[in-house]
């Protein structure tokens, strides 16, 4: 899900009055289907959580011990005591994803303002070009990017991976933000122009504040993408201590055995921010996704 195509749509569309079809009372069968959806969706994470709070004896038991008896935080404490590099992976992910998000919002925001609200020749061509480039599979970048970064000494550096992620997701951010910026009323910009404000000034003091919801949506989506990104992080961070969480945890098992008690605990810690974001900011996320894709 790294790409959004299709045509522009107005993000504010969500705010219309509810339609009668939607207000119709729902049946019991409807609730049952909805409940199944919820269970199926959270089921794997719930099981991983249960595994992570079991003792090792309970994890490797047949028949399977469904509920932890006793529940323990030992696996989490063991990460702290014995394999703190797993916490380092999460810290690396946090540094990379946060910085990437701000770099993309700055560069992509400026570009989206230019493409969405200013007129000059070649504007639409550039927007289409940006979208077309992002259609290439990320793997197409790997052989070249690996060599370039090796030559430039950017392998195993935060800045290297941040630039990589920024490149991957700037096109999507430009696309979503262009649609959001178009919704800022032109009257406000006109008034500022009359007062002699420059384009940069208007971008900073008018467009950005008035598009705050769009910026938050885009920022959260980009953060999640960067947090989850795998192929580039795998190749550009080969040093054990520089790995991001998804890569570090995947490669952690090593050659022989899978320490599921550690894997499940580290996985829970890594997906916790995702769980919180998708719970707290669901409107923002859905708004951003639909602004980037629908018609």
């Amino acid at each position, binding site marked *: *899900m790294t790409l959004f195509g299709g045509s522009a749509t107005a993000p504010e569309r969500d705010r219309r009055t509810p339609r*009668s*079809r939607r207000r119709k009372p729902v049946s019991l069968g409807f609730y049952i289907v909805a409940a199944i959806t*919820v269970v199926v969706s959270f089921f794997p994470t719930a099981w991983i959580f249960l595994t992570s709070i079991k003792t090792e004896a309970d994890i490797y038991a047949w028949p*399977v011990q469904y509920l932890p008896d006793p529940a323990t935080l030992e696996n989490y404490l063991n990460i702290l005591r014995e394999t703190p590099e797993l916490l380092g992976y999460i810290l690396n992910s946090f540094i990379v994803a946060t910085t990437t998000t701000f770099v993309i919002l700055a560069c992509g925001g400026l570009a989206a303002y230019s493409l969405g*609200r200013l007129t000059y020749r070649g504007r639409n061509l550039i927007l289409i070009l940006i979208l077309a480039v992002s259609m290439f599979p990320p793997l197409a970048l790997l052989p070249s990017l690996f060599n370039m970064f090796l030559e430039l000494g950017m392998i195993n550096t935060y800045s290297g991976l941040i630039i990589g992620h920024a490149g991957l997701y700037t096109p999507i951010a430009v696309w979503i933000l262009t649609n959001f910026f178009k919704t800022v009323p032109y009257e406000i910009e006109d008034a500022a122009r009359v007062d002699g404000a420059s384009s940069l000034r208007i971008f900073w003091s008018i467009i950005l504040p008035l598009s705050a919801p769009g910026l938050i949506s885009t920022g959260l989506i980009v953060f999640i993408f960067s947090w989850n990104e795998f*192929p580039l992080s795998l190749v550009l961070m080969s040093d054990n201590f520089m790995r991001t969480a998804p890569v570090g*945890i995947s490669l952690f098992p090593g050659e022989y055995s899978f320490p599921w008690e550690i894997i499940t605990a580290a996985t829970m810690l890594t997906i916790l921010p995702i769980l919180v974001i998708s719970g707290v900011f669901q409107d923002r996320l*859905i708004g951003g996704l639909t602004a980037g894709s*629908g018609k």
Partner: protein
Amino acid sequence: MKYANRAGPSFLAPALLIIAFVLLFPIFQTIVLSFGRNSTSIFIGYEFAGLANYQRLLNTPRFITSLNNTILFTAVTVPIELLVGIGLALILDRNFRGKGLVRMAALFPWALPTALNALMWRWMFNTEFGLFNSMLSDIGLIAERINWLGAIPSAMHVMMFVSIWKTSSFMALLLLAGLQTIPDDLYEAGSVDGTTRLSEFRFITLPLLKPAILVSVLLRTMDAMRAFELPFNLTDGGPLTSTETLSLYAYRAIFQYVNFNLGSSAILIQFIIIMTISVFYILMIRRGDL
């Protein structure tokens, strides 16, 4: 009004610089490398080899297998995801108590890191201590524990299942955007005429949802065609190469067998296929068919 502006193009500079550095140039180099021999860069010691890598790939059974795996994976998962996605989108379009929870349930699989999600399922499909073997034997469906991920073709089936679980909800969110553009008057007119639920869906919802369906199917097809971290973490392409996708094959050619040129050609073939499918879809969207 929009403003004719000299500053406009210069605002594009930072974004275009990053895109040129991370996307445009590397893609260009990958294309050139795919026609090369024993070279990892187009600047130092590049040797032109014509179509040699492409010919070699087409005569490599393992590459053909990964191509078939990828096409099979895409052809099975995308239509099922569409069906599940339509169902879920219809649920999300209604107003009811607890809607927030269902929306979160729809977002959550999409937001999970695919790599870690693959590990989660790998644990649940574990042969010796896995949840599914345990549940199936509890209800008496199996006598012996099943080696889901270590057998052909069940490993591929599990991989398809995981992908459907993970991405149906994304499909649903894209379709929901389409559903919300359908004017309510149409349904009201329908109910005056006494339409049933089913004919309402068949004659109002489905035709008007077509554009959203095409866009989401296009996005998911492109995504499924380049599946990488799912097989990487769920099955490692195995058993044998029964779940090795094009992306995984290319990755191994490049970084395990250190043949940048062969790997680049594999990626290019993958891209050509994706492009062909995309153009086909986009033409259909333009013509308003299907």
